[in-house]
């Protein structure tokens, strides 16, 4: 079976630190995998390895069946990425930013389509033609979500995507993720937000010091149990 995301004994050693210790993971289409862990646990390193921005020291990451390190450019067509803090081009408007990133991904949308994506992401209509330099963090995050959705990717790589979003926008984002997973998108989300992980995730993993120490289906745990499990590993 071809997994949309797969890690085989994936390791990353920096000069003075072993950031990832033999990660083995498979994520299928329609699955939302939430990776919990403290700062420095290796979550961002894992995302960077799946994005092909860094090379593994050993092992391999696969995206849609392609080894990431050997196909770092090709695999980008199958993924969309939302960082913790979406930074856009401040001299361009939200609409122009979305048009730019979509065109780079190979999509040429009409303005009405772009506006629809921004609306779907929850960006107020009055903001779409304002320069991004005037946006709040949450508004930038919404444009980032629109960019990811407009790419129609098979895999979503999310690094603390709800950071900076207000509760209403976070809920809307969770709903959006559910819709995307129902359409077959595989989601890999690194987060600190246990509640959000329980709410949208189909599986949850806990990472500590570069090691995936536990993986559970979220259906098997309630929020409190998940929190207890997480705290146990973090002690």
């Amino acid at each position, binding site marked *: 079976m071809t997994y949309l995301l797969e890690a085989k004994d994936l390791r990353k050693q920096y000069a003075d630190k072993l950031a990832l210790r033999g990660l083995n993971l498979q994520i299928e289409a329609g699955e939302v995998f939430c990776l919990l862990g403290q700062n420095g646990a290796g979550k961002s390193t894992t995302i960077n390895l799946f*994005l092909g921005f860094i090379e593994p020291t050993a092992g391999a990451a696969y995206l849609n069946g392609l080894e990431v390190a050997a196909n770092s450019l090709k695999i*980008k067509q199958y993924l969309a*990425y939302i960082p913790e*803090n979406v930074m*856009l*081009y401040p001299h361009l408007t939200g609409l122009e930013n979305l048009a730019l990133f979509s065109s*780079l*991904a190979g999509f040429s949308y009409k303005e009405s389509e772009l506006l629809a994506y921004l609306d779907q992401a929850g960006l107020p209509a009055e903001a779409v033609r304002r320069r991004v330099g005037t946006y709040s963090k949450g508004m930038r995050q919404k444009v980032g979500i629109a960019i990811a959705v407009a790419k129609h990717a098979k895999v979503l790589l999310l690094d603390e995507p709800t950071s900076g979003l207000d509760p209403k926008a976070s809920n809307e984002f969770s709903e959006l993720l559910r819709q995307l997973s129902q359409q077959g998108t595989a989601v890999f989300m690194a987060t600190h937000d246990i509640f959000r992980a329980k709410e949208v995730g189909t599986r949850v993993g806990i990472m500590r010091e570069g090691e995936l120490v536990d993986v559970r289906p979220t259906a098997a745990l309630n929020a409190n149990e998940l929190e207890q499990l997480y705290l146990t590993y973090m002690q």
Partner: protein
Amino acid sequence: MIQSIAQKEFISTLRDRRFVVLSGLLLALLLAATLVGRGSYRTLQHERMVAQQTVNEQFHNQPNRHPHRVAHYGSFAFRPRAGLSFLDAGLDSFTGASVFLEAHQQNSVNFSQAQQSGSLIRFGELTVAFVLQVLVPLLIVFLCFSAFTEERETGTLKLLLSQGVSMRRVAWGKIAGYGRAVALVVGPALALAAWLLFGEEEFAHNPDVWVRLALFVAGYAVYFFLWIVGAVVVSARQRHARSALVLLLGCWMLGCIILPKATANLGATLFPTITKAQMDADVHEAAQKGINGHDPQDQRSAALKANLLKQYGVDSEEKLPVSVGGLVMAESEAYTSKVYQQHFADLTRTYERQNAISNWAGLLNPYQAIRPLSMGLAGSDFAHYVHFQQAAESYRYQLVQRLNGLQASMGYGDKERKLDAATWQAIPTFAYQAPPVGWALGYLLLPALALLLWAVGLSWLGLKLIDNTPVV
């Protein structure tokens, strides 16, 4: 993809107030330099044309005179400025504007603007070329130093690359975008220059000036391309914008200020020029070995006279159909001219060797490649100066020998007689024909090649470096 990134860079740059202020200042400087340069060109050109006409008329309107008196009366050759020299004055301000043409000696070209102006001109003029060569690269540095560092620092680079764009394509997009922004600053000034130039009858139908201007623009396009590529590569390889800016400013100082002066000093040290006094003394000493036309006791003159008597089969100077004095003068002129030309050629060779050091440095420093290319295409470099000097000397020699011929044809006792004033009107005056662009290109192969090598080498190596640049 490249087009989208280029468009984004262009729009972002135009909306950046810092760029608008900086480029506005630079554009104002360029336009001012173009207009002032053109005004100065027209004034000087007019002055020199009027002066040349005046001396030509004075020469033609001489009264009845002995030809050798006319040879000593002499004339002047004024160097007309080249059409594009208002864009790049090159050496024009430091080389002379006119040369006195007289019998027996080859004078140097004198009365440069630097000689007649205050000492401030020695610090360089505000010409279009100065702005293009020195200030536009500075604008490019400020425009491009954060091309990648800012993207990396803010995190937009990861988002950009996650869309499936390679670092190389991002770099090309940025280069194209910044290129458009620079063209927006430089373009209006060059368009104004072209309009001023070709709006006048003098150059409207002159393909040579068209070709020179086209190559001038192409040369600067390559030069700016180099700076943009260099700045983008440095920005990609540095982790922080501050270190990229410091490195680029260091390159700018080294390339535009330190290296040109260092290589000029090195050239002058390796190939020292002799002083004017020493050269005059050397020429005088060498000239002594030839016939002295003004010394009747000169033994070589006596030998020439004896040969003439024998050639014409007569026994006294009175019976000769030619003037011995005129032929002695011609012989003397041929010899002294050879002596002067030898010494001027040696001096020119020394200057050329000095310049060659600087020109070869163009392989290390693009500024030292564009500078001679720009001057050469503008017609204000050393080669064009020497071309004028040689044309003036050639005219002087032919004029003096023609007058010596007239004297010789007067026969015995010529010194007591004069030729009719109409004789001088039949003598053609000095009319300088500047060399064509094809001739100039022969002198510009090294700088042109250096610039192209830089463009190809930097693009290839720089973008290879960018390919291997870590994203995070």
